[in-house]
């Protein structure tokens, strides 16, 4: 018999997760949050998600094309087939970006008109121009500036979707911060971004169950339902995509520092935890592989840092929502953490050579 044998290096078996399957699982985990966003903010959320994903994928593909052209190489069919967009990470970035944007209502509805929204199919108040503009700019910033310019997947210095959100929030503050309205929230919860935007815009709330489920206002559509985000988070933990300890540590450290900064007010702390982007940040953003530390000890430092910065920004800063900034800041600190927090090999550090070789 001819020896038509495959010869390759060990190990000959591999775990079933690949980059692509991991990204696919993240997309599945984001489904409940996405569904909640559609239910609470209307079908225009679908449009903004499709737009963001398309822009992200297109800009990643075009980046590869430009790189080939810059190197005076032909962009072949093979290049297209092996393009990095097929690992689906740009789709995850796109969807996360969409969930980090507000629902785009027409500026003139900022006052009372937003109350007229009656159902998820009510599209007459949607500001399509603003949506397209912000999605395109956000997608390009996330993929080209944050991810591809630094070397693609695994090399980005900060979470692409979050950095794009911050970019948009700082450059187009009026565009981003304008009216948003949760359809199912009672009318007395006004159109200001969130309760965090100031005590007067949304009453200090203690109906935690409603807040947990998503009957509240939110600056970004994906943040609205802690319950849906938690569901996705549990899925990721069960599928062993993320380590449950990191999101839990982020939430606990945020709770601890908010409790301290608020002067030991338990109810206010709970309201803070359930408002804003803490769940979205802790479960889907802080756990981003490339920008979180590679060791358990390092990730605990990272989580503590996020919690501290969230509390600091929310209580001492001029900006209502601190999670994005906190995470991106700790993203940038991550290489430093990884540099200094190196596990001691099993059996202790290698002793210095006693014998001198000659």
């Amino acid at each position, binding site marked *: 018999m001819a*020896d038509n044998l495959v010869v390759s290096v060990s*190990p*000959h078996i591999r775990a079933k997760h690949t980059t692509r399957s991991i990204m696919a699982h993240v997309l599945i985990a984001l489904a409940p949050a996405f569904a909640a966003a559609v239910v609470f903010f209307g079908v225009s959320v679908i449009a903004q998600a499709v737009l963001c994903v398309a822009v992200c994928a297109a800009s990643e593909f075009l980046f590869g094309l430009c790189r080939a052209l810059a190197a005076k190489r032909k962009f072949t069919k093979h290049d297209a087939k092996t393009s990095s967009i097929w690992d689906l990470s740009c789709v995850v970035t796109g969807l996360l970006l969409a969930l980090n944007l507000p629902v785009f209502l027409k500026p003139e509805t900022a006052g009372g008109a937003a109350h007229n929204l009656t159902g998820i199919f009510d599209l007459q108040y949607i500001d399509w121009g603003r949506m397209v503009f912000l999605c395109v700019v956000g997608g390009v910033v996330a993929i080209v500036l944050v991810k591809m310019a630094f070397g693609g997947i695994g090399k980005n210095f900060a979470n692409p979707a979050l950095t794009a959100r911050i970019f948009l929030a700082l450059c187009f503050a009026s565009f981003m911060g304008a009216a948003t309205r949760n359809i199912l929230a009672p009318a007395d919860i006004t159109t200001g971004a969130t309760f965090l935007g100031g005590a007067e815009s949304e009453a200090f709330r203690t109906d935690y169950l409603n807040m947990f489920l998503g009957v509240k206002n939110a600056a970004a559509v994906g943040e609205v339902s802690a319950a849906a985000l938690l569901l996705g988070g549990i899925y990721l933990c069960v599928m062993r995509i993320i380590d449950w300890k990191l999101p839990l540590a982020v939430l606990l450290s945020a709770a601890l520092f908010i409790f301290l900064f608020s002067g030991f007010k338990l109810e206010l702390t709970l309201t803070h935890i359930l408002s804003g982007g803490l769940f979205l940040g802790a479960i889907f953003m802080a756990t981003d*592989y490339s920008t*979180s530390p590679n060791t358990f000890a390092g990730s605990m430092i990272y989580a503590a840092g996020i919690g501290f910065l969230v509390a600091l920004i929310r209580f001492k800063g001029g900006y209502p929502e601190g999670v994005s900034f906190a995470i991106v800041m700790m993203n940038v600190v991550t290489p430093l953490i990884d540099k200094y927090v190196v596990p001691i090999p099993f059996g*202790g550090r290698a002793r210095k050579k006693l014998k001198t070789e000659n």
Partner: protein
Amino acid sequence: MKSFTRFFVAGVHPHGMKSLSAETPIERCPAPKRVYIALSQGVGKPSHPVVEVGDTVKMGRLIAKADGPVSANLFASVSGKVAEIAPYTDTAGNQSRHIVIDNDGLDTAEKPFTPLLNPQPEEIVKRVSDAGIVGMGGAGFPTHVKLTPKKRIDVYIVNAAECEPYITCDYRLLTEYAEQVVEGAFLLAAAVGVTKVCFGIEADKLRAIEALKRYKAEKNLHNLTVVPLKTRYPQGAEKQLIYAVTRRRVPSGGLPMDCGAIVGNTHTALSAYYAVREGKPLYERVMTVSGKGIRKPSNLWVRNGTRYGDIAEACGGELNNTAKILNGGPMMGASQISRDIAVTKTTGSLLFLTKDEFVVATSSPCINCGKCGRACPMRLMPMYIDSFALAGDYSGSKKYGALECIECGCCSYICPANRYLVQSVKLAKKKIKELGL
């Protein structure tokens, strides 16, 4: 009582695939027409032939002598005539010298040694050395070297973890030859002046544990401890096993004897029993022949020097879709380039894998997930060793622990980007030694 199972940190859990051959009793593989006995079987110097072409040899006759302290004797595994001493492909894919013996089919045996009933420690060490016994788990390190430690030893651990998928030969040995294995282990322990023997065995190997416990109760052996371990790869790695069984850590860069332990393979203990009690040298062993590419997965007594093709025939032949042959398990085993290669003392398993049983991975960029670091049983950072090694900065690789690597393959196994991490570490190790970093 302490927790039911003991474990080390990290590791991975590949699919066991052991049910293919776990409940098949050990049989004898018919002796082939010709055996090809490699002069180099495991680490150390190749042995030095002491027979000439044309000599008639009996089964059990010394045919090659150890060359130096780290080397082992070889014995004829069939009776017949030495046909040639020539280079053939060995299990590593290299051309190396083999002694080829034409089998006369008579199996006329000679016992070169007299059975020892009450041996002194030195006699055991000498017998183990004379009988050519090596570590039969894979590396093939001569056992007599291990039995002359420079430090005080207080526990002898038998490695029965068998954590690699597919392999069931140690499990079968313990179920069927518990008495001989245990006695052999006590002999090896006695050789280093130790009375305490521990068996480290994965907790899912219930029948083997039962057999050991039954024998222990029967003979009232106080010094025998059976330690069930968590089923996890690489539970059978020396340092991890010592930690799991005794909670001692082998110091970095050290040997097991630095923490008072010696680890030996299950089959090594059995071979020691035969050598000491029956005077039979090591020329055959039990191995697992498994995989979906073989008609009858089995556990077989196979003579040293039998070629893969002959073994496959003894197992009902290959199914026509075998795509890969492995010497060893799928995590650390070596894929073979031909069916005309002969097994050695260290071949614990021979796997005939079909296309859907293995992966030839295409690697993609590292996504920095840190899974490799979490899986590493030595707590290294494979992702940094890899990136430093690929960038040519081997001192950087060293800093992240390249030299501590036990090459178990957990990092490559778990890597979602399918990177060749173990190979990078091996490269780094080699370069660090070459450059003297």
